[in-house]
């Protein structure tokens, strides 16, 4: 017992790594602050035209006002629900499809060409068709988020499954594993890092899709607001919405990253 206690490798309370982590965060914070300062004073001293670029302090003030209006929450909620619905749908479809395509060569040969075509095609180009089919309400945006997110997850899941260690599959079979055991206990946990990477890519694509979709044609949502403020040259409000989207995407992506690092940790033989 004492042996484990002394050299337990799972939790490190050593100072080094902690410092490292805060060091990284510290440098990033300083860089962001420097940028904001530069922007603020560049505008202040008329190095740049405030009409086009606004100024951090003004954006901040606009944000404080916007965050108190129900209008903001209405549009944010529309975009958020479109994104979540489309993304959830993408998850539900892509992971099983990826797992099956990764395992079965025959199905893959059949399905891969059209899949790859859709993966590489600019899916936003399909937006006009989607609008004809689904109208300008939420449905068309949900569909475009789905299309944006579904392919990176499928493709990465396939890669994860195909990279599965054959020796692990054989060991599982030697102990009498059936196909379901192999999926649940070997293939899925083994390809989790790849799946999460697909999810991370999918988040970026999905967000882009929802915003561009709303800009293109809609009656509500953050993309719609961006378009409205842009046409009206309301730089402050426009930037508030842009930042909200960035923060949301960044936060979500980073959470998946953390999860990814967690599940990948068993790989680091360091």
């Amino acid at each position, binding site marked *: 017992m004492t042996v484990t206690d002394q050299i337990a490798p799972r939790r490190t309370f050593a100072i080094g790594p902690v410092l490292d982590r805060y060091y990284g965060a510290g440098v990033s914070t300083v860089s962001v602050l420097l940028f904001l300062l530069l922007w603020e004073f560049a505008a202040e001293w008329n190095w740049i035209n405030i009409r086009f670029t606004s100024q951090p302090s003004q954006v901040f003030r606009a944000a404080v006002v916007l965050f108190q209006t129900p209008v903001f929450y209405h549009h944010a909620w529309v975009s958020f629900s479109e994104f979540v619905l489309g993304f959830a749908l993408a998850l539900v479809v892509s992971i099983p499809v990826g797992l099956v395509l990764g395992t079965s060569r025959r199905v893959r040969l059949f399905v891969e060409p059209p899949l790859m075509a859709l993966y590489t095609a600019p899916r936003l180009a399909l937006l006009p068709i989607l609008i004809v089919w689904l109208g300008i309400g939420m449905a068309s945006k949900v569909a475009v988020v789905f299309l944006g997110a579904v392919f990176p997850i499928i493709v990465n899941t396939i890669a994860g499954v195909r990279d599965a260690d054959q020796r*692990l599959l054989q060991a*599982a079979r030697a102990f009498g594993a059936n196909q379901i055991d192999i999926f649940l206990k070997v293939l899925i946990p083994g390809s989790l890092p790849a799946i999460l990477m697909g999810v991370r890519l999918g988040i970026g694509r999905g967000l882009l899709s929802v915003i561009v979709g709303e800009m293109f044609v809609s009656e509500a949502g953050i993309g719609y607001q961006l378009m409205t403020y842009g046409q009206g040259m309301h730089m402050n409000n426009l930037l508030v919405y842009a930042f909200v989207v960035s923060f949301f995407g960044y936060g979500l992506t980073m959470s998946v990253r953390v999860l990814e690092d967690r599940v990948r940790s*068993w790989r680091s033989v360091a």
Partner: protein
Amino acid sequence: MSQIEIRDVSIEYKKPKSEETFVAIQGINLAIEKGSFVTIVGASGCGKSTLLLALAGLIRRARGSIRVEGRDVTGPGPDRAMVFQDASLLPWRSVHGNVRFGLELQRWSRDDLNERAARFVRMVGLGGFADYHPHQLSGGMRQRVNIARALAVDPQVLLMDEPFGALDAQTREVMGDELLRIWERDKKTAIFVTHSIDEAIFLGDRVVVMGRNPGHIRDVVEIDLPRPRAAAMLDSAAFIAYRRKLREYIAGDMQSLQMIKDVA
């Protein structure tokens, strides 16, 4: 009737990028008694792993029959467990989880799982490392987990394909010692492939010497050394005589390998 009966077994592989087949082993006959320890040696490529995979029910035979306890082997079964050379542990599972893996697959009852896995983790001396993951273990520790995983499912026959192949000489010796200690307890039938002649003699009741082109059994050498075996025996006259005999066999096979190269 012996516990394991291998009759006239041949195994063929499909050659890559062609329709031809390659005969990996041919005409293998071997009977193995319950509770005995059989080791298999032979030049690389003579089909030792192939034979073991066939016993495990993981590959199909072209000819012949393999019976365990009178039943024809048609696939993997709970009566046999395999210890692979390396990298067959699930990297995302702990030591405990890896030992549980085999039990889960063989549908042991939920209550037994954890308790039994823990017992076998302790048995191979890893009680303090149950929560470690494979990448945090040494090669020798990983092989202990492999062995614990196989023993935990309580097989009749333990198949081991060069389980100590990746270990250094000292660790190998220690592991061999321990394996014998564990084996002496309940004397499960053990079939053990190795490249080391000393290991084969030290562990085995019988050493099966295989030759190549195609893989076949050249001879089976009875090892008449008392048990429990001890490291001191490695220097006994009897041990040295066995060693010399087996070396000659394998050297002969290596020569034929050399000739093939010269012709080619």
